[in-house]
């Protein structure tokens, strides 16, 4: 069974404020990813790679088709599941590292990383220790762990985001440009984290503009082609 798969997934946007113009972005996407496999989305800028990622996470709805996620011994259709079920899938099964960190002001970094672990039932101490270790591995020194990330640099915020995404060990992990603003040393850490997650059976779908990183972590590419009528 795939860890995550799409079935005839299509998506277009209707912009009511622009006279109801319709922009088709995805048409009949069929993508299946097995546990332990890493698939990189390829295609030119604007082809819909990020849109596909957001559909996979349920952040965007689908125009038609399905996104099936193996969760709790069955397949859940993220596009049609009710909000509570999507939350359960996101808590236990489906992780997403977006390009931007969006958090409540004032919450310390270590707690941001520990929270998804505690939501899955880990004890506070255990979760905080795990968060600290992962942050250190991503070269965020302990002096920063107690601070909210609002004043951090872009690269530091991205590493907080990565720590939060990798900490729980989700069975399915979506990575949107995980190395975009990282230096070489931190890029290596991310490559190692991805390799470890794959060995642990995590299915990964990623967008990697850094082709060197992509070729090292991806088992295969999935081409997202721009739609003709979208041009």
């Amino acid at each position: 069974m795939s860890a995550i798969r799409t079935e005839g997934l299509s998506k277009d946007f209707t912009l009511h404020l622009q006279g109801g113009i319709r922009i088709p972005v995805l048409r009949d996407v069929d993508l299946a990813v097995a546990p332990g496999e890493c698939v990189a989305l390829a295609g030119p800028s604007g082809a819909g790679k990020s849109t596909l990622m957001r559909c996979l996470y349920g952040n965007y709805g689908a125009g038609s088709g399905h996104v099936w996620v193996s969760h709790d011994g069955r397949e859940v259709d993220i596009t049609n599941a009710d909000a509570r079920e999507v939350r359960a899938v996101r808590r236990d099964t489906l992780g997403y590292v977006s390009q931007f960190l969006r958090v409540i002001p004032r919450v310390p970094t270590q707690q941001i990383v520990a929270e998804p672990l505690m939501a899955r039932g880990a004890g506070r101490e255990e979760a905080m220790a795990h968060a600290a270790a992962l942050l250190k591995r991503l070269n965020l020194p302990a002096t920063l762990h107690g601070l909210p990330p609002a004043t951090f640099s872009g690269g530091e915020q991205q590493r907080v985001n990565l720590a939060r995404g990798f900490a729980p060990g989700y069975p399915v992990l979506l990575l949107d440009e995980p190395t975009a603003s990282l230096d070489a040393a931190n890029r290596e850490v991310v490559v190692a984290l991805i390799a470890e997650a794959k060995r642990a059976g995590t299915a990964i779908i990623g967008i990697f503009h850094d082709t060197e990183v992509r070729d090292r972590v991806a088992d295969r590419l999935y081409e997202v082609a721009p739609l003709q009528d979208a041009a």
Partner: protein
Amino acid sequence: MSALLTAEGLHLHFGKVAALDDVALEIHPGEVVAIVGESGSGKTTLLRVLAGMMAPQQGQVLYAGEDVHAMGEAARRRLMRSDWGFVHQNPRDGLRLRVSAGGNVGERLMAAGARHYGNIRAEATEWLKRVEIDPARIDDMPLQFSGGMQQRLQIARTLVTRPKLVFMDEPTGGLDVSVQARLLDLIRALVAELGLAVLIVTHDIAAARLLAHRMLVMRRGQVVEQGLTDRVLDDPQHPYTQLLVSSVLAA
């Protein structure tokens, strides 16, 4: 898991104006649901109807299987003391202004049956700390507090009895942004810790995004769109939701 509160077919008209036009919703234990929309969209009316403070002309509100509007005033007050909490936009509506800060918190405990003065004072002290009010000010009157402190005091007073369901009407409205952030952090932490269900009315879309699991968008008394908070905000379908989302200033 069954719903804590269920509403069906709610209608309420003020003259020709529809404040509620066939509104239905349910809220489950531990769930934070935001109701957003412009002024006059009916969101505060909806909150008041759900909390039993105002009767609908049609429709039903069930709490734990009981009809909130048919249960009678005494039963509803009992519910307000035991299972529910209500956080008003203006803290002065939710606080007793001639009673000390500690008394405001302790009074709700007493209404719920606590009798031992020492315990009540200890618990009130504990709650002042939790909402970041210096316990040294336990005997001060609410009017000696700033607006943000009054709002935190109201939250302490509401949550001290550990309600299952809390109604919040614009809890961060009228406060400085720095105070808002603090309050959001506080509400989020308490919700997670106590496993509360919260219905929060707000026109602050950014706050709703950070706090709420689910969102309802109201316009002219109707729920025009609802669902997972991030999906409603990032992939809005209804023209009004698109307008609402595109009108938010990004900080």
